[in-house]
């Protein structure tokens, strides 16, 4: 048996966010995806009734928001993915409306395209979206088990992928990201893996899988890749983040270690009755045996990831992990 030296790729930095139980204002309401442009974080919120894109910074400045809940223009019902292009346009896919909504640089509604179906340009629950290096829009067409590429105005360019569990096939894929080398990484959710494709959709490599080793994945939601080609996967079903080398070797697993964000601390400062009790509570308790899955454990341990729905490698060389059920983002420094 050979031993392997584990080299950590990231180290915990800080947490941003707080649960927001309103349709407006700072904080997050079931954040589901994240994008970045010029140091601004675009956080897509999926909470029924409170859907929106909220824009904030690493320093927890809350800047603005746009998009609301509903069926009209600029409104979402089940928004699942957000991407921002180099011109500052925001693209949001909605798996209920089966469309992509486009917002301008100030958050104004511009257009929407797509409809339910399985023909070219139609969607079956679009669940992830990314900007290709050539500026085109890539949409994960979840229930049609394919990736569709569009120009920014919604003109269809190409589609690839089909249902199955062989190489190149997909099973209800979720999130998507693009590498510096134009590779396309897709969270192949139902197959418990991430697949890497070239820009034309030719399969290149598989990461994870359902096996029992440390690098296995269970229902991964989103990949992110850094400039060195390291892959970060929000391993949604395992309530974890897995990190792989460019060659596909598993190198690190994260379970989450959230601390109080600036907004969280401000809340506790304003509520000393809760703060004082929190200070003397054991928030890492030993759990009864029936809390026996990562999901159930995450319901109990506040600092652990709970619903890691998206990851992003930021322009600032930080890893952002979005947790839909804890309404926050844990941030790690890339080493």
């Amino acid at each position, binding site marked *: 048996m050979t031993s392997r030296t584990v080299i950590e790729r990231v180290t915990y930095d800080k947490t941003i966010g707080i649960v927001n139980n309103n349709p407006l204002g700072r904080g997050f309401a079931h954040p589901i995806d994240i994008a970045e442009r010029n140091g601004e974080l675009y956080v897509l919120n999926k909470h029924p009734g409170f859907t929106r894109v909220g824009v904030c910074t690493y320093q927890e400045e809350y800047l603005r928001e746009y998009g609301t809940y509903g069926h009209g223009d600029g409104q979402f019902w*089940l928004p699942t993915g957000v991407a921002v292009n180099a011109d500052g346009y925001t693209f949001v896919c909605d798996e209920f409306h089966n469309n992509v909504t486009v917002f301008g640089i100030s958050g104004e509604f511009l257009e929407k395209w797509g409809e339910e179906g399985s023909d070219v340009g139609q969607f079956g629950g679009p669940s992830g979206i990314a900007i290709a290096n050539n500026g085109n829009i890539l949409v994960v067409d979840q229930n049609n088990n394919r990736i569709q590429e569009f120009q920014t105005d919604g003109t269809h360019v190409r589609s690839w992928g089909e249902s199955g569990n062989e190489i190149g096939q997909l099973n209800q894929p979720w999130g998507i990201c693009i590498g510096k080398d134009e590779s396309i990484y897709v969270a192949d959710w139902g197959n418990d893996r991430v697949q890497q494709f070239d820009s034309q959709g030719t399969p290149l490599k598989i990461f994870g899988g359902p096996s029992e080793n440390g690098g296995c994945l269970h229902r991964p939601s989103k990949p992110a890749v850094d400039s060195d080609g390291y892959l970060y996967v929000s391993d949604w079903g395992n309530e974890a983040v897995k990190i792989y080398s460019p060659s596909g070797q598993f190198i690190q697993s994260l379970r989450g270690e959230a601390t109080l964000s600036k*907004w969280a601390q401000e809340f506790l400062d304003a509520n000393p009755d*809760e703060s004082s*009790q929190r200070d*003397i*509570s*054991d928030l890492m308790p030993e*759990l009864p045996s029936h809390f026996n899955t990562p999901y159930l454990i995450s319901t109990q341990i506040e600092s652990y990831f709970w619903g890691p729905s998206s990851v992003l490698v930021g322009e600032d060389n930080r890893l952002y992990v979005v947790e839909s*059920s804890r309404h926050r983002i844990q941030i790690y420094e890339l080493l």
Partner: protein
Amino acid sequence: MVTVGNVTEGRSLMAHLIRRTGFGATQSELDRLEKLDYNKVVDQLLNPTESNHLSDDLVFRYHTEVHEQRGGPWSAKQWLYRMVTTETPIVEKMALFWHGIFATGYAKTNQARALSVQIDMFRRFGLGKFDVLLEELSKDPAMIIWLDNQDNHSGAINENFGREILELFSMGIGNYTEEDIKECSRAFTGWTLKNAEYMSVRAMKDSIWPYGRISWHYEYRDEDHDHGEKTFLGETGNFNGSDIVSIISKQRATATFISRHLYDFFVADEVPVPQWPYTPPRDPEAIETLADAYMSNGHDLTEVLRVLLKSDFFKDSCYERIKCPAEYVAGCLRVSNSIIKPTMLMNEAVNVMEYMGQTLLNPPSVEGWHEGTEWINSGSIVERVNFAYEVWRNSGSLEVKDITARLSVSGDLRPEEAVQSCLKFMGPLELTEDSARNAIVDHVSKKGPIKFGDCTGEMMADAEERVAEILALIAASKEYQRA
């Protein structure tokens, strides 16, 4: 495969069994069950293996809020998915049974996740030995907060849980004294939850900050337990809560009380529980039979149910119960085979149960719901009729397609034949008032006979539409409100 012909007695009995132990059966399920021995089916039902159901992963991905379960309706939605799609519906039915008796609600706990954990506990222990279930209930964090046992301290007891475990959860009023309540409460001092003080503050303020709820779990604090001698129901000792549970569970009064609840839920509607001390059971002999089974089988609830489900009083009790809203809604969705993937329809289904008078995981009080005919009033019946009509009217549902295919075997049908046949598929059910039956037949007659044509053509699609409408009208009948 049953088509339009007469429904056999065995098929009717199986349909009755599955309505009571589950949420109703589809025609293909009845095809399978009809060929089996009734007693063997009962034995299989009472030995549920690990349940398949629509995957939580799928539900959680689609309904992000159900993944978190911060709000009561979000947890209720997950439970409803289970009721509708599980392969072991008796597990969910028992959970619903115990939820009605050990009624714990969101209104005070402000912790939907803890309520889900409690329901899961009912799944694990609801068909086992009553002693074990009652002890687990006493350790259940939602119950602890619901009945203030975190405030029950050595030297300063809070009697809330001590009273209700006797009055509502096991023996019923009139079978214990006020002194027993105090001694019982003393025995449960120190039974609290981890970080009780922080969690109490959060529950009291309904605080979700900073990062949503933190689920609860039980903690025993020996230093807060009253270790003194206690006298309870005539026995004396240094009792802890577990001893109290053992003493309660062996009482004949407990056997009778739980048996009457089982009769009420599985056999025929009884009067509401507060009237039990003054109103004898509907079938005293049946209650005695069930209580005997409880006492002679080590308080094993599966054995009590086995006696119940194989009894003549059960077999003769078709349509003697009003479906509670959860049974009605889950039954419509399940039997129509409408839920094969996560859908927004479940949001409506959870809401409509509330309009019908039953907010799952939020009973009106620790007494639970008053059931039977009290479910039906002028408002709730409109909600029931509208929901059932909407679900069954969907000609795309798998069950509507299946029933239409079965009907088509006999060729084109006159309206009265079509209605009569659909009544067989929906129960079998008989409409007690000719006026109701005639109204449906008249409505169907407006478009003449139902013609099927070949199995794939436009005519078949039209037939599915018309059959769906007949099924929807039957589902809106007063007879369909009963199980």
